[in-house]
C-alpha cells in the first residue's frame, strides 16, 4: 500500500470502530471492547508505519476534490510532514493506552459502549486534524473533537458538576471557534484556497493582506481549544469527566491541537510581529498564572489540569519565538508524561477513594497500595518538573533555549521582546512547576495518619498502560538528536545557560516546597480531614464520580480545601485564596457575560409573558364572552330545543315560500 492509503486508513479505522461501537453497543456487548481497542491499536501501527515511511523527508501531499463547492475549493487533502507524522504517533499511542486503560477503569459502567465509541470518534477526529492538508477538513475534525469533549466531560451527567462543566467547556471553546472560522475564511480569501501548502505559499510571497487581523482571529480559536489565557477557564472544570478522558482529550491531544495548528501555520503568525508579541504575552500570563493556581488546588486532577495549561503555555511560548520544532518537541514529551500523570491519578483516586490531596495527605502508605502508580507518577512528575535526564527536561530546555536565542537577538524571525517575555515567564514557571509537582508528590505519597484503605490490586489493564507510557516519559528526551531531521532542522540540544538556570530553579522550587511541607506536616495530624467514596469496591469510574460529587459538600468547593497543613498555602501566603479560584476569572466572566445574558433573558421573559401574552389573552377574551352567552341557551330541556327547531323550520319554510312565489 502507498503511504497515502495508509495515512487515509489512520483516521478512518477509529471512525469505523466508533460507528460500529455505537450501532452494536446494545445488541452485541461482547464486541464493544474489541471494537474500541483494536481499531485504535491498528491506527497506532499504521501511524508508526506512515512515520517510518515519511521519515522526516519530503512532505507527503495528496488531494482529491469530491465536488465543486463554489468560490474557494474545499479538497480532501493530506499534508504529512515530520510534525504530522510524529504527532499522529503520539495521538495513536495515548489513545491506545487510554482505550486499554478504560476497559479496566469503567469495567462496570453501563454507559461504557457509548463512552468507548466517543473516545474512538475523538481519536479519529484528532488524527484527521493532524493529517489534514485542507483547513476546512481540519476544522471538521476540530469541531468533532469539541463535541466529543462535551459528551465525555458530561459522562457522569448525574452530577451537577459534570453537567455544568460540559456546557462550560463547549461554550468557551465555541467562543473561540467563531473568530477562528472567520479567520480561516479571511486566510482562504487571500490565498484563494484552503490548502495549507497554498496558504503557506501565499504567505511567503507576501500575498496576505491583513496578517495581524487574521493571526489574531485564529489565535482566539487556538486559545479556546488549547486552554490559553483568557479562554482557559473551561479546562480545570472539565476534570469532572472520567480520568481517561482527561488524559486523552484534556491533557495529551485535543488541547495540543491548537498548538499544533499554530505550528502548521506558523508563517502566517510570523507575518505579524504584533501577533507574535500577543502570543508571547498570552503564553507568559498563562504559564505563570496557571502554575500559581496549580499550587493552590486540592483536587489532584485540577492540579494536573492547571499544569497542562501551563505546559501548553510553554508550547505557545516556543511558537511565539518562532521555534515550532521546540513547541512540537514539548508537545510530544508532554503528551506522554501528562497522559501518564492523569492515568496514574486515576489509579490513585480509585485506591484512596478520594480526589482530595488534603485527604490523601492523611493516609499512610498509599504508595504501597499502588506501587505501579507511585513509581510511574514519580517518573512523570520528574519529567514535568524538567529534571534531567527525563523527557520534560530536554523539551523544556529546547523551549527556553529558543527563547534565550531570540531574546539575545540572534534571529530575525521573531521579535526580541517576545523572547524576553517567554524566557522570564518560562524560568519563573519552572520554579512553580517544580513546586507544585513536589507538593503533589509529597501530599499524595508521603501522607501520615490512618492506614490507606486496601481494595486489592488494581486491574492489570490499568497498571500496564502506566508502564508503557513511562518509557517515553523517561527516555523520549534523548530524541533531541534525531528530531531536528523531522522538524525544521533547528537544533534542539539543550543550551548550557538555560539548562543550568532551569534545572537550578526547578531544584530550588522543589526544595522550598519540601521545606514548607516539613514545616506544615506536623499540623496535618491536628486537623482531621477527609471523606472517601461510599462504594470503594466499585470500579474506578464510580469511585471517581462519587469523589468529584462529594468534594464540594465535604471541603467547601470543588477547587480547594480548608487544610492548614497544605504547603501550597504556606508558600502562596495571601495569594492562596485567589489562586485557588483561578484568580477570580470565573467571577469576572460571570459579571461580564453570564449576568448580562441572564438579565437579557429576564427581559425577554418579561416581554413574552407580560406583553405578548396580554395581546394573546385579549384576543381570546371576546370569543370566550360570546361563547358564554351562547351557552346560556343550553338549558338541558329537550322540548325547548325542539321548539327552537320548529321555529327555525317555520321561518325557513316561510322564507322559501316567499322566494318561490317571488314576493
Amino acid at each position, binding site marked *: 500500500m502507498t503511504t497515502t492509503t495508509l495515512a487515509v486508513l489512520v483516521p478512518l479505522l477509529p471512525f469505523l470502530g466508533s460507528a460500529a461501537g455505537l450501532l452494536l453497543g446494545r445488541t452485541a456487548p461482547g464486541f464493544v471492547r474489541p471494537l474500541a481497542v483494536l481499531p485504535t491499536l491498528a491506527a497506532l501501527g499504521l501511524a508508526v508505519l506512515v512515520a517510518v515511511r515519511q521519515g522526516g523527508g519530503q512532505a507527503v501531499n495528496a488531494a482529491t476534490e469530491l465536488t465543486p463547492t463554489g468560490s474557494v475549493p474545499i479538497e480532501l487533502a493530506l499534508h504529512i510532514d515530520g510534525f504530522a507524522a510524529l504527532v499522529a504517533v503520539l495521538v495513536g499511542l495515548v489513545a491506545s493506552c487510554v482505550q486499554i486503560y478504560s476497559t479496566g477503569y469503567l469495567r462496570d459502567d453501563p454507559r461504557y459502549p457509548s463512552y468507548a465509541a466517543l473516545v474512538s470518534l475523538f481519536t479519529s477526529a484528532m488524527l484527521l486534524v493532524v493529517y489534514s492538508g485542507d483547513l476546512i477538513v481540519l476544522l471538521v475534525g476540530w469541531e468533532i473533537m469539541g463535541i466529543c469533549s462535551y459528551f465525555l466531560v458530561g459522562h457522569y451527567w448525574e452530577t451537577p458538576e459534570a453537567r455544568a462543566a460540559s456546557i462550560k467547556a463547549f461554550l468557551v471553546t465555541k467562543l473561540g471557534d467563531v473568530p477562528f472560522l472567520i479567520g480561516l475564511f479571511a486566510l482562504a480569501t487571500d490565498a484563494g484556497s484552503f490548502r495549507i501548502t497554498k496558504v503557506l505559499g501565499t504567505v511567503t510571497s507576501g500575498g496576505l493582506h491583513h496578517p495581524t487581523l487574521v493571526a489574531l482571529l485564529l489565535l482566539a480559536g487556538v486559545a479556546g481549544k488549547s486552554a490559553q489565557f483568557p479562554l482557559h477557564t473551561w479546562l480545570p472544570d472539565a476534570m469532572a469527566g472520567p480520568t481517561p478522558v482527561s488524559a486523552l482529550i484534556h491533557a495529551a491531544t485535543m488541547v495540543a491541537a491548537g498548538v499544533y495548528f499554530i505550528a502548521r501555520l506558523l508563517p502566517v503568525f510570523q507575518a505579524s510581529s504584533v501577533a507574535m508579541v500577543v502570543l508571547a504575552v498570552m503564553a507568559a500570563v498563562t504559564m505563570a498564572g496557571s502554575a500559581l493556581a496549580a499550587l493552590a488546588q486540592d483536587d489532584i486532577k485540577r492540579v494536573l489540569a492547571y499544569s497542562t495549561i501551563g505546559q501548553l503555555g510553554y508550547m505557545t511560548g516556543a511558537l511565539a519565538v518562532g521555534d515550532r520544532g521546540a513547541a512540537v518537541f514539548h508537545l510530544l514529551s508532554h503528551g506522554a508524561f501528562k497522559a501518564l500523570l492523569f492515568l496514574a491519578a486515576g489509579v490513585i483516586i480509585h485506591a484512596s477513594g478520594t480526589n482530595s490531596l488534603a485527604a490523601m495527605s492523611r493516609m499512610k502508605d498509599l504508595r504501597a497500595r499502588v506501587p505501579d502508580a507511585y513509581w510511574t507518577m514519580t517518573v512523570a512528575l520528574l519529567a514535568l518538573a524538567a529534571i534531567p535526564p527525563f523527557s520534560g527536561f530536554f523539551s523544556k530546555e529546547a523551549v527556553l533555549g529558543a527563547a534565550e536565542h531570540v531574546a539575545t537577538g540572534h534571529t530575525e524571525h521573531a521579535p526580541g521582546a517576545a523572547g524576553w517575555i517567554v524566557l522570564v515567564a518560562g524560568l519563573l514557571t519552572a520554579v512553580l512547576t517544580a513546586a507544585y509537582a513536589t507538593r503533589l508528590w509529597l501530599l499524595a505519597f508521603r501522607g501520615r495518619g490512618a492506614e490507606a484503605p486496601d481494595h486489592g490490586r488494581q486491574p492489570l489493564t490499568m497498571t500496564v498502560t502506566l508502564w508503557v507510557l513511562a518509557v517515553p516519559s523517561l527516555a523520549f528526551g534523548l530524541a533531541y538528536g534525531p528530531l531536528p531531521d523531522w522538524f525544521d532542522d533547528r537544533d534542539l540540544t539543550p543550551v548550557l545557560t538555560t539548562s543550568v538556570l532551569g534545572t537550578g530553579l526547578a531544584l530550588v522550587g522543589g526544595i522550598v516546597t519540601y521545606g514548607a511541607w516539613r514545616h506544615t506536616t506536623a499540623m496535618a495530624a491536628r486537623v482531621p480531614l477527609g471523606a472517601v467514596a461510599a462504594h470503594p469496591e466499585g470500579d474506578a469510574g464510580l469511585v471517581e464520580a462519587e469523589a468529584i460529587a462529594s468534594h464540594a459538600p465535604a471541603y467547601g468547593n470543588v477547587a480547594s480545601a480548608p487544610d492548614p497543613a497544605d504547603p501550597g498555602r504556606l508558600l502562596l501566603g495571601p495569594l492562596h485564596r485567589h489562586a485557588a479560584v483561578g484568580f477570580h476569572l470565573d467571577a469576572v466572566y460571570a459579571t461580564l457575560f453570564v449576568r448580562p445574558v441572564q438579565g437579557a433573558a429576564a427581559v425577554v421573559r418579561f416581554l413574552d409573558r407580560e406583553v405578548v401574552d396580554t395581546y394573546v389573552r385579549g384576543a381570546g377574551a371576546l370569543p370566550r364572552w360570546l361563547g358564554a352567552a351562547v351557552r*346560556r341557551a*343550553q*338549558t*338541558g*330541556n*329537550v*322540548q325547548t330545543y*325542539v321548539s327552537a327547531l*320548529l321555529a327555525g323550520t317555520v321561518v325557513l319554510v316561510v322564507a322559501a315560500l316567499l322566494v318561490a312565489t317571488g314576493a
Partner: protein
Amino acid sequence: MHLAYPAVLAALLFCTGLYGVLARRNAILVLMSVELMLNAVNLNLVAFDIWLSKTARDTLHSGQALTLFTIAIAAAEIGIGLAIVLAVYRNRGTSDIDKLRDTAEGPDSGAPAAEKAEATA
C-alpha cells in the same frame, strides 16, 4: 276520494303529535306523540302514492313501499325509546322530561353533577 281529506287528516295528526312532543312532560306520552307524527307522514305517503298512480306517473308504488320501511323503523325506534325511558325511570325514579336536564350548561357547571349525585343517591 279527494286528496284533501287524507291531507287535512294527516296535517291534524301531525299537529297533535307536535303539540304532544312540545308540551307533554311524560316521556312515554312524548314517544307516543312522535308515533303520531310518523303516522301522519305515513298517511301522506300512502295518499300521495295513490294520487300519483292515478295520474299514471308512478307505477312502482314507491310511496307505499317507503311506508312499510317507516313502520318497521318506527317499531324499532319505539322499542329503543321505551327501553331508554324504562332505564331512566329505574335509575331516577321519574320519567319527567323537565327534570332530565343533565346536559344543561349552567354558569356553575358543578350543579348538574351535584343533581346527578343526588339522583343516584
